[in-house]
């Protein structure tokens, strides 16, 4: 067991849309955080986001006990001392905040996951969406473009929508065509924005089962809370965001490092079986 009192660790979640980094203390307190757009330059962005998080924490890289990496481009985090899967890191990150078993829906830029988190913070099961982009955050970005608003402006539009316009295709390309069809038919932009949120929620429901309590993390939960409202309506149960939902995976990766160095338990990364 390491003397944990001065240990700090970093986690980097290298996603398709954004890279996120978190610096945590030995007791799991978040000391620093940063988010940068991926822009397709994963290695450079990983360096940038880690430096920004260290800066936010007022620490330097030399003080890190290790760097955990997760996400689509985790192998591009060249300084990582440990890698672990999205599902495991999001499960651990969400559990760190909530301290109970849950169904965790992780919705980021690419395929969403429904993760069953046990009462020790481990993923007991994880399911991904079928091969189709209709359930991903990137679809909301396309929709925002068609509605001529910024990505975050889509949420403001949806919040003003009373009834969702029907956007129901299984295919994101067809769904964006549906958005244009609704506009041609005279639907209000607010209704279409809300319909896009429902479209995401419908794809998530199809991935079920979604046993209570139900929590959501990832960039979509951060920027598009309308998706959570739609998910709650469709499932008939409360749906809550994990605190700082976009950072959940990075937090989990940092916590994995603490486990690995013996501060918070034994390491259980996939590296152990390679």
């Amino acid at each position, binding site marked *: 067991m390491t003397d944990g009192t001065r240990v700090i660790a970093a986690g980097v979640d290298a996603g398709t849309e954004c890279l996120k980094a978190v610096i945590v203390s030995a007791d799991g307190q978040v000391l620093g955080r940063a988010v940068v757009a991926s822009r397709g330059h994963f290695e450079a962005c990983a360096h940038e986001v880690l430096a920004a998080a260290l800066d936010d924490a007022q620490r330097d890289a030399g003080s890190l006990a290790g760097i955990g990496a997760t996400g689509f481009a985790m192998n591009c985090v060249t300084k990582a001392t440990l890698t672990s899967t999205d599902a495991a890191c999001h499960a651990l990150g969400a559990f760190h905040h909530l301290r109970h078993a849950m169904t965790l829906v992780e919705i980021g830029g690419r395929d969403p996951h429904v993760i069953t988190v046990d009462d020790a913070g481990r993923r007991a099961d994880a399911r991904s969406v079928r091969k189709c982009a209709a359930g991903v955050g990137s679809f909301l970005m396309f929709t925002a473009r068609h509605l001529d608003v910024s990505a975050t402006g889509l949420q403001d539009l949806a919040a003003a929508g009373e009834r969702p316009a029907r956007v129901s295709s299984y295919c994101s390309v067809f769904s964006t065509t549906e958005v244009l069809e609704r506009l041609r038919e005279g639907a209000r932009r607010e209704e279409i924005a809300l319909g896009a949120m429902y479209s995401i929620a419908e794809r998530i429901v199809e991935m079920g089962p979604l046993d209570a309590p139900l929590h959501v993390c990832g960039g979509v939960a951060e920027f598009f809370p309308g998706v959570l409202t739609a998910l709650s309506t469709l499932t008939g149960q409360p749906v809550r965001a994990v605190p700082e939902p976009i950072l959940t995976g990075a937090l989990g990766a940092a916590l994995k490092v603490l486990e690995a160095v013996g501060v918070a338990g034994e390491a*259980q990364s*996939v590296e152990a079986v390679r």
Partner: protein
Amino acid sequence: MTALTSTAALRETMGGHFHALGDAAVHKSAPIAWCTSVGPTELLRALGFEVFFPENHAAMLGAARTSQRYMPVVHAQGYSPDICSYLTSDIGAYLTGETPLEAYGLSGVPQADVLVFNTNQCRDVRDWFEWYGRRWNVPVIGVRSPRALEHVTTDDVDGVTKQIEGLIPVLEAVAGARLDHRRLSDVVRASRECSDLWEACLRTAAHRPAPLTFFDGTVHMGPAVVLRGTESANAYYRILRAELEARVGAGTAAIPGEAYRLYWDGMPIWGRLRALSTLFEEFRTAVAASTYCNSWIFPALDPAEPLRSMARAALELFIVRSEQPKERYIEEMVARYDVDGIVFHDCRTCPNNSNTRYGMPRRLADRLGIPTLVLDGDVNDLRCFSDEQARTNIEGFVEQLADARPAATRRVTA
């Protein structure tokens, strides 16, 4: 992956099968019947037919990843991309005038004198055969099987037996010979021996470490599919069994350092066999057993009662059963092979071989207390499969196994 030396004998055995078909097609030395993979092949052999299995051909197209070129040819003729990609691959290859059988000296698939189906698997096999029947103006006959059976009743067996008996006059006319019932009994005896030998080979994987994996099985099952009822199949499985038993004796692992064991339910993803095999090996995980490879085990076959036992064997198959017997079967396999988890392949164009769609993975996970993973993919259509998504899911699944039972604490005897 530790390679099996029996593979050389396998190539020779399968080559003999294809060369015999080629001779029959060119020299008309024997009539040719096409048969579905779990169809009444013993009856066809007893009547002197050379038997061709288009599902085997389609699997070859999938493994060679040429399917992607052939399927659109058939889609353009009004066959949906949502139906069996074996069907669309095979007919597309025919229309394109290409076949992997060229490696065995055949210029094309051997033209059938009769096509014989059993819909115990699905309706697609019949539609598939009827396409060729129209093309060549030859008879398409078969068994219209009951499906989703909780129990195989005497009435079910009676009905299918009568249907098989009903095939005989047409087959005799095409073959130009009368059925010799003693010969049929001999073929059924040989087929049962093939089944027993193949089962013995697969059962060696119950040993830790497993001497072969599901991925090996998908290749070495070839003779059990296309040559059951012949001595050449049985001779091959004696060779394979001896090698596998020697491996068990020596503690030779198919996956060096085997740490985890899995069961695979559903079709192979032929175009990604090697990639998936390598991926599981990377994680020191042996996919030790599968429903698919077990599907050519026919314990009901009985030479004393050939036709009736063929009917029973065709009805007792996993794919013909309802959810409850399927779950009982998988439960038994999980115990027999002592696996840590189950991988279900949800095969987009093969719903009858996808046991993911009515809640089975969760029911089994809850009941057995082991994790399950659903992989989305397809038997031949790689557009339905995402390498990145599959890798992420498998990586996460193995991580989950590691959480449940760290590799270091596992009994590794390799």
